[in-house]
């Protein structure tokens, strides 16, 4: 058995992805864009802000992460790197998780950043001082919950993004499937957000994440588990499904399947 494999290949793959995408475009741009987006909503729609910010952020994350993941995989595919990873003993799980790791970091950064500084409900300033008691009484768990959901959501989208990366051989195909993925990931969430109709149960990651974050339980800082149980469970199931799909596709990719391979 190979020993000491835990950290090194994983970190190397993670770093390589960052380098490949270019430092400027991803390291800083993503959280900055997220903050800018939320700031704009806050000024343009101060009423709807509390409801929409977190959901918009979730959609933004899902879309951004899936595009970044597919772009990275396509780049590796075009350069015939995937079989080289395979022969270096990179396992599909490790490959997938190194991709998810990036998404998780971005989710954590932008999610926390925006919720913390952008949401008036999380931090309240009273008489020029931060209201720590309100923060500790319920906003902190809410923040953690929101961040966890953001991470899970972006990990799910990365896993799903492995599918078009595996299927498409051309840039055109990739762009097309990227658009389809965007519609699939964000369309229902947007509909759920904007529709004046009573909102029914929609089994969709972005919708579920958005709902959980802005559910009355969370907004009123009364974190009781019971009403959250069903959405959480279904969301967990969805996450497992995404992971399974991602693992399968990563295995196929490392074996040089889906064209443009060595």
């Amino acid at each position, binding site marked *: 058995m*190979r020993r000491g494999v835990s950290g090194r290949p994983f970190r190397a793959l993670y770093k390589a992805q960052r380098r490949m995408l270019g430092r400027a475009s991803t390291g800083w741009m993503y959280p900055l864009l997220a903050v800018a987006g939320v700031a704009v909503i806050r000024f343009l729609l101060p009423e709807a802000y509390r409801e929409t910010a977190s959901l918009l952020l979730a959609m933004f994350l899902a879309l951004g992460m899936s595009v970044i993941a597919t772009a990275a995989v396509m780049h590796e595919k075009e350069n015939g790197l995937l*079989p080289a990873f395979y022969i270096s003993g990179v396992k599909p799980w490790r490959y997938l998780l190194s991709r998810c790791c990036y998404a998780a970091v971005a989710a954590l950064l932008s999610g926390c950043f925006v919720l913390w500084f952008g949401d008036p409900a999380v931090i309240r300033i009273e008489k020029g001082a931060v209201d720590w008691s309100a923060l500790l009484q319920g906003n902190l768990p809410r923040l953690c919950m929101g961040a966890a959901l953001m991470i899970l959501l972006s990990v799910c989208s990365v896993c799903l993004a492995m599918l078009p990366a595996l299927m498409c051989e051309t840039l055109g195909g990739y762009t097309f499937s990227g658009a389809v993925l965007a519609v699939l990931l964000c369309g229902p969430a947007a509909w759920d957000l904007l529709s004046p109709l009573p909102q029914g149960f929609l089994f969709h990651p972005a919708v579920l994440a958005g709902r959980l974050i802005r559910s009355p339980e969370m907004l009123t800082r009364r974190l009781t588990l019971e009403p959250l149980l069903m959405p959480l469970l279904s969301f967990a199931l969805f996450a497992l499904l995404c992971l399974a799909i991602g693992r399968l596709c990563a295995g196929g990719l490392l074996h040089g399947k889906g064209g443009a391979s060595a």
Partner: protein
Amino acid sequence: MIQVENLHFAYRRKEPVLQEITFGVSQGEIFGILGPSGAGKSTLMKILIGLLPRYGGTAMVMGQHCDSLKASFFSRVGVDFEVPSLFERFTARENLEFFRSLYSRPCFQVDDMLHQLGLTQHADQKVSSFSKGMKTRLNFARAVVNNPDLIFLDEPTEGLDPTSAAAMKNIILGLKGQGKTIVMTTHNMQDATDLCDRVAFLSAGRIAALDTPRRLVMKTGAAHLTYTYVDNGVEQTRTTPLNRTAEDNVLSFLLKANRITSIHTDEPDLSKVFTQVTGGRLEP
């Protein structure tokens, strides 16, 4: 090291690419796989490294079946794919450092490898600005960076100038000297003759011939001697088999009379064997 028995393979919904392949490679040997384009050389290699697990028959490498390879296999194997597999946006050194970091066993020093392959000057240049030959050399370095015991090389000298090709061949022989087993494909018959202990000719998915290059060459028949002389002001050419020169009275006479104007032998070589066993043309 490698045992293959009655191996069959077909890509999905396609005609069979490989049929009834049987051979073995022992430790410390350089084994060549030769054959025309599309004969299935790269496919055979991909099966042996586990990239194409849906094959029929038996294929075992280092005691493991090729459809279920374990982690220990990958740390001991290096593969030079026919298409360069490098990060275009990294420099040569960064590429090697990256692939080195995927292994936990002791690897070769990056600077030593770059030096041996004549890439020291270009170590900090981005791979996207490399020429084809430079990429081929770096790709070779990538393949052997983990100091593997078994090395697969798919056309390692393709696109190299004669000097680089000679250097590359020396490195390959050096690796053999360290006891490593090497399986390589090539279209260059001279390289195959210089490097390989045994070669297999693949033709239409089957092994058409398998032996040492020397014995294969001998089997195609003796070499011929061709000489020219001037008779009554007209240049004449005659050919005689090398093993029958004593019976050629004209030759004996001309030799004694110092009348031969040119003489040369056409040694049979692997190219001839290639044409004979595959019935096709040799790629340059």
